[in-house]
């Protein structure tokens, strides 16, 4: 499966990677000088905000590009771009760069809201581990086509309080078992919140016989038959969940609070370093540990993209390139700073740059690389909408 995806990935890249303009990196650097870049990125985590501020200062001193962090979530940024398209502002939009992935990317791509292929122009893009990290080329199976620059790796992990749980459940079945023994102590965010949708996809992948159907458009599959085990599982799980499955959290951040409060005993995250990171800054107790399911867990990549009407696209490219630099990526991977896994391939780095990563603290609650290597691919992007709709029809009436 993975191999087939990879080979088609390579084929796709060869077909589609032709620069929009024959611009060189020097031209871009020249044009970028003095530009102001509005970078729309979620601002709910002060560690990430601090990191972005650091990157902003670096890019200012290295390239004379001024970046402003607009603390805005991707959907709001997409709304801004849509409004601009409606009003006919096609050349000087308010968003120059935004943090996105998955559905937001797929929808922006299909509606022509993205700038064009640009990552092939960025020197640091050559360092990205596209070979072993297929999700840097396929964002929720949508071909990236150089339209967005990989920023960090994500993998669904579970957080549990080891003071309360001796052995963490490592499969969907064990999780149900845990809920039966500890009613009210587990929950997941309600789809369409993306952590919630990811949990639903994870369960679907675990309960379904390995099949190609999940990696093809949902219209081609017998949706009802394939998802039947998922719904009967959730039907059983929900009454055993926090607030009896009648109230849901709105995302992983709220679940982290509930874990700290002891209202729930298992939470989830897209960042494998989250537990260590949160212990370090006091948000979670020292007893919290990370675990994943034996079948592996869903992994993906998050990116930065440039809208079609960005006012300072060159400045945005310079900033995106810096975000992929070994310097920025190593700092980002540091759990004391942010703790977000790198997109770079160690083999492509110089010895000095490799050393930046080797010395990083790992954190007490982080799984080993070997344990984390067990990854599942996202189902085809069209499954997201279908699953969310079916979920809402069943559980949000």
């Amino acid at each position, binding site marked *: 499966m993975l191999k087939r995806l990879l080979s088609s990935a390579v084929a796709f890249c060869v077909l589609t990677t032709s620069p929009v303009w024959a611009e060189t990196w020097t031209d871009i650097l020249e044009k970028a000088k003095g530009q102001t870049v509005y970078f729309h990125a979620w601002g*709910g985590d002060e560690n990430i905000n*601090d990191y972005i501020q650091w990157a902003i200062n670096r890019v200012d001193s290295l390239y004379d590009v001024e970046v402003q962090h607009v603390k805005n979530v991707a959907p709001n940024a997409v709304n801004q771009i849509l409004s601009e*398209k409606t*009003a006919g502002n096609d050349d000087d939009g308010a968003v120059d760069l935004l943090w996105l992935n998955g559905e937001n990317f797929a*929808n922006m791509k299909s509606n022509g809201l993205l700038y064009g292929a640009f990552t092939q122009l960025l020197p640091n893009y050559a360092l990205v581990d596209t070979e072993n990290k297929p999700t840097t080329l396929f964002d929720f199976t949508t071909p990236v086509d150089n339209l967005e620059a990989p920023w960090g790796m994500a993998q669904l992990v579970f957080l549990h309080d080891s003071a309360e749980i001796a052995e963490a459940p490592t499969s969907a079945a064990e999780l149900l078992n845990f809920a039966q023994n500890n009613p009210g102590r587990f929950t997941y965010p309600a789809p369409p919140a993306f952590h919630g949708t990811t949990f639903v996809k994870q369960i679907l992948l675990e309960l379904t016989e390995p099949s190609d159907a999940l990696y093809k458009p949902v219209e081609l599959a017998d949706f009802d038959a394939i998802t039947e085990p998922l719904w009967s599982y959730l039907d059983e799980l929900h009454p055993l969940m926090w607030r009896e499955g009648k109230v849901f959290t709105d995302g992983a951040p709220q679940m982290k609070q509930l874990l700290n409060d002891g209202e729930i005993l298992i939470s989830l995250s897209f960042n494998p370093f989250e537990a260590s990171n949160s212990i370090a800054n006091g*948000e979670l107790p020292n007893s919290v540990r990370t675990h994943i399911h034996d079948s592996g867990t869903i992994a993906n990549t998050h990116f930065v993209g440039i809208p079609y009407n960005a006012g300072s696209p060159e400045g945005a490219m310079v900033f995106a390139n810096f975000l992929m630099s070994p310097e920025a990526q190593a700092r980002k991977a540091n759990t004391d700073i942010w703790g977000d896994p790198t997109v770079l391939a160690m083999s492509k780095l110089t010895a000095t740059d490799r050393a930046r990563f080797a010395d990083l603290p790992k954190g007490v609650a982080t799984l080993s690389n070997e344990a984390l290597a067990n990854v599942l691919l996202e189902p085809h992007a069209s499954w997201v909408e279908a699953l969310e709709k079916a979920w809402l029809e069943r559980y949000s009436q």
Partner: protein
Amino acid sequence: MTSSLSLRRPTSLWSAILAIIPWLTAALFLLPIIVGLLGTWLPAFGYFPALNEHSLSLTPWRQWLAYPGVNSSTVKTLISGLGASFLALAMLLLILIGLYPSRLFQKIEKALSPVLSVPHAAFAIGLGFLIAPSGWLLRLVHEATGWVARPPVWSLFQDPYGFSLAVTLALKELPFLLFMSLAVLPSLKVHRTLWLMRGMGYSRRATWLWMLWPQLYRQIRLPFFAVVAYSLTVVDLALIAGPTTPPTLSVLITRLFNDPDLSLRTVGAAGATALFLGVLLILWALRIVEKPLAWWRNRTLRRGRQITRHTCPERPIAILLVSITGLLYLLGLVVTTLWSLTLRWRYPDWLPESTSLRAWSRITGRIEDPLWCTLQLAGLASLIAIVLVILALENEVRLKQMNRPVNTRRVLWLLYLPLVVPQVAFIFGFQVSLIGLRWDGTFPALLWSHLVFVLPYVFLTLSGPYRRFDERYAWVARTLSSGPFTAYWRVKFPMLLRPILYAVATGFAVSIAQYLPTLFVGAGRFSTLTTEAVAMATGSDRRMMAVMALWQQSLPLVMFALATLIPALYFRNRREMMQN
């Protein structure tokens, strides 16, 4: 003072300015809403060129009606929205029957402004900290008794039907209704009515219910309608205290507008339009139902059914109600402050395990720009609003003097449109028009969008006391001074200083609370205390959330404190002005 002929006629320029003001004000503030509504209605009927939808159709409406959970979401919206409004109204009535007029009521009056200055979201966050299953109240219970060593699995907060949302909203709207009643109560001659009716054998309760309340309601109808509309369409508070699967309509609509699937924008637009029509329908029904109620009341009173005197349990209930409300506000503030000073804090500890100033120091380094931007926006918006409102009210006075029917009051009714139209229903449309003019992301446009919301509240707050002003003072002043401006500035303005400053403070607080307009009209170029606070609230770090919530509360609090202190200082030698 025998004839008004001795009045100096206001200059014609002055009266021309005054004549234009209501129309100008209304036009200026209606424009964004009309344009914005159009910008929402077109997509609601399938016209959305940016997504290559060029033909009109009813598809979005069909999709909206078929969207999962719309029916139950509607029921929850009605429970929480109408429940909150009527609960707040009932609590207001109870407090008035039990406590007005009394010494205690005067104390409540004094405590009102700090309570009013608490932003909705901050109040809900504080309440959540208190009564969640792992909240502070249960921690205190554990500390005292040793029970509930683990947070219970049941909860009073965020129930699936919207009851807790209704109560949260009602507790937040009660001070507002109380505040609006303060302006009206003196004109009702409550004390004398109660005295008279008691002599005829009627109880306090009967007097209030049958005589005073209908008069009061008529005068606070408009603020009450604003409360109804707000409660039915609130987003931020519903996200914190409301049900989730499905949420209330406004949250559902916001989610559709924010869905990565861009085609759901048209469904969201249809939903927003439906919500707008629903709110209008409910307000219309509330207005209509007044007539049969009045008829019924008159009939009952005419029949002369003796409503016997009985002991009045309202007083203790009202005292209890006021104490609980006050306590919730106070404890919410205390627990928020505690969280802002926390390093680690878990259940069941009633105090943080370790404390730190880290959250404060992290924010202090970057608060300067948002703080400055907030001050500029709120300061200018409330200043412009107060000038326009005073001019509009002076125009009423002018028309009254000319014995012309004050039909501009009808124009000013339109000002309340922003309070009735759900923000989600027009803010996107307004944004599109601003972008079309390339005005988006500019400070004047952002200020304008704030004014749309600030102005009605300033008008709402000031119009009562202003209209009650005894115009004979102004006449005397004019006969004694050199001109209308001097007379106004030296006599009428100082006499109205207290309500004017309160109106400014209210406008200030309203401006600070704006999130969607700041984000969308400002195109993300302007960050305020509120955009920062909302950004923090999307994260998991309660300590940072608490710091931002406190920052956000502090500015309105300072303004309300100034609005109380300045008149107190100014009138320190005027005994008559100190009272009231």
